[in-house]
């Protein structure tokens, strides 16, 4: 620690140069923090998955429907402690297709399945009781300025009512929220009471989109899933059951390898930083060769001089890197408010901080090592005489 003033003096020997270098490293880490947040958000489905939840969908395609009669049979599978079902409504709100997801659910069963959703008991009760009831995620409520108690006019692109009309109306009776930001994205949804929906729709009565199954022992997830699928084998409505996490990972894969794309972009960013900062560092050490020689004359060992140069590189990167990540973490809540519920909430995770620290260390080594070794090899006589 006693060497900090020395390091500081070395670093800010040429102020403009160091400040500019700091700024470019800062920008790189700011970008890193933001982009990792986007990747995390895309993968958050898998993180917020509950190991005791399975998803049962139609075997051949997620868009096929399953009979509601499967419910009783799934309930009888040993190890199953609860079953809920949901169907995609295909919402169109204020002329925007799929403005937000709407699921037709059995209120009690569905909310039991997701204990991480926070809902006031009175609102939960109202949802179960109200025939055309609906509850909505708080971020949606904020985005559209809805009030609990109002009518929600939402069209469906898929389900006509008995009279052929695609216009539906629901009573907003409550809101759902979540504490964990990774889960909050899952509450960006409107849940409608299936009782009214199934009764009023013209087509597909008695069928549902998918089942959510709660099991008692997550280590038996695979066996129970296989057991469920076996019950419907060779029936007209075969099923495919998988743990929620597997389903989320598979779905993220449909989008493609976003992670790989982001990694490539960040590799380009950090390669650029490596070249820019590496050059500055080398130049700075070159200019200070006589000073380093004096340090050695004063009795600094070769090892100590090497360490000093390395530490300087580390200080530069750690300073700018930490600042960049902090600003990213600080800016994200504002960004989340600005984009509303159109995108899952973005935040800097512990994993990103660890990765960032790793990158700082690796870059410091790559940037600091060549000039540090040069400083180590320095012979006092040559350096002082100006033979470089």
């Amino acid at each position, binding site marked *: 620690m006693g060497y900090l003033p020395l390091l500081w003096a070395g670093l800010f020997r040429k102020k403009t140069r160091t400040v500019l270098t700091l*700024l470019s490293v800062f920008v790189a880490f700011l970008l890193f923090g933001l982009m990792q947040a986007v990747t995390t958000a895309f993968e958050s489905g898998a993180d917020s998955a509950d190991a005791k939840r399975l998803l049962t969908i139609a075997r051949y395609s997620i868009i096929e429907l399953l009979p509601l009669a499967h419910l009783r049979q799934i309930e009888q599978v040993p190890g199953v402690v609860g079953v809920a079902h949901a169907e995609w409504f295909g919402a169109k709100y204020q002329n925007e297709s799929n403005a937000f997801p709407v699921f037709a659910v059995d209120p009690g069963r569905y909310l039991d399945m997701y204990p991480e959703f926070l809902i006031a008991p009175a609102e939960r009760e109202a949802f179960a009781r109200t025939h055309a009831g609906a509850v909505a995620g708080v971020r949606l409520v904020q985005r559209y300025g809805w009030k609990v108690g109002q009518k929600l006019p939402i069209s469906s692109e898929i389900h006509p009512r008995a009279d052929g009309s695609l216009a539906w109306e629901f009573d907003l009776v409550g809101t759902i929220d979540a504490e964990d930001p990774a889960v909050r994205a899952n509450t960006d949804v409107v849940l409608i009471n299936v009782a009214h929906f199934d009764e009023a729709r013209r087509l597909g009565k008695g069928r549902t989109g998918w089942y959510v199954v709660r099991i008692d022992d997550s280590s038996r997830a695979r066996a129970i899933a296989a057991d469920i699928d076996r019950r419907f084998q060779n029936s007209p409505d075969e099923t495919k059951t998988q743990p929620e996490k597997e389903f989320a990972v598979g779905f993220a894969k449909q989008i493609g390898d976003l992670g790989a794309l982001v990694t490539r972009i960040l590799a380009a960013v950090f390669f650029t930083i490596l070249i820019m900062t590496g050059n500055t560092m080398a130049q700075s050490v070159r200019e200070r060769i006589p000073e380093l020689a004096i340090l050695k004359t004063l009795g600094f060992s070769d090892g100590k001089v090497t360490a000093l140069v390395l530490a300087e590189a580390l200080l530069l990167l750690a300073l700018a890197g930490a600042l960049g990540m902090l600003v990213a973490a600080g800016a994200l809540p504002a960004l989340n408010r600005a984009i509303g519920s159109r995108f899952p909430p973005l935040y800097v995770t512990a994993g990103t901080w660890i990765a960032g620290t790793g990158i700082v260390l690796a870059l410091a080594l790559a940037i600091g090592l060549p000039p540090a070794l040069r400083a180590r090899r320095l012979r006092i006589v040559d350096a002082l005489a100006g033979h470089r």
Partner: protein
Amino acid sequence: MQALHQIAGITLLNLRTLPQRLGTSLVVVVGIAGVVGVLVSVLAMSEGFRYTLASTGRPDRVILLRAGSDAELSSGVPRDAATLLATLPGVARDPSGRPLASVELVVMVDLPRRGETEPNNVPFRGIQPAAFDVRDEVRIVEGRPFQRGLREVIVGRKAAREFAGLAVGSRIGFRDSDWTVVGHFASNGDVHESEIWSDAEVTMSAFRREGYQSVTARLADGSRAGLRAFRDSIGRDPRFSITALPEPEYYAKQAAVLSTLINVLGYTVAGFMAIGATFGALNCMYSAIASRQVEIATLRAIGFGALPVVVSVMIEAVVLAIVGGAAGGALAYLYCDGFSLSTLNFNTFSQVAFDFRVTPGLLTQGFAWALGIGLAGGILPAVRAARLPVTVALRAG
């Protein structure tokens, strides 16, 4: 005139000494190349996606969907209505009098990408024989067309490339049934190349559907007036609740969400990188003038003006930017152009395969960014160089 002469003199002197400052100069080049490379690559992805959808369809063709639906998947057209729609007077006919309309249904099948196991939503389209005349850009590139009434499919060129097990001759199992891939088709690189096609009736029975989802028809009168008349005739008819969209409009709508998303990503990342690269360029130009302090002061002392000094520093920055911009553009072109990818289009909930397209427009845009960074990074150092008091600078040497 004299100013021009001076500018040329100093600029040449600067550029001749560039090799001595290779390290710092390289920093500017690499920094700018990074920005331009990333910008052009990401935008090439968005451009490729947009191109694939935008090149689908022609203005004289319409797609008919249930009123209120924006995509085929959410649309439904009952059998009787579909048959009536296909024979409306506004629909073009072939020489034998058959209407140029194909009544179709689209289902999703799960297929893994090559080398993976996770399922992807690949669109499976049941078509009628007229489809090949309605979409005359479709060509069989390998194998043969499917036979009506059989469980045979033809596969779009891009789907065959992205997803596993779609080679001609292979068998695929969907729903208690085996299908044989009998051919591959090309369709001008458009979105249909991401699809699997089979006979509509066979598809309907195999997937246990009762109705269709869309009708694609060629209009007898492809002009705006013809389209309006056709729409009016459907609107007036109480038997239908149908919207008719010209194909280009329908497919452009489907590209909207994803291409906006990719563009936002591209510009945000490149914007941040550009800021970082500007700091790098500033650094480099400051150290360039610092190392030439004495030369510059000497020139000023023997009568060179401030303007030529400013201009010469700017020119140096711009030259480096041009080299960086060219390198970045070239890298993006070599690395990305034609690279193929498939992703889930949120508008249709199905996979679309497309190729990255590095267009001249994108390269020009990348170059403009490079010049911008070069100018921004050059101006402050240039002004400092010109303002340096001659005596101070000479003494410093």
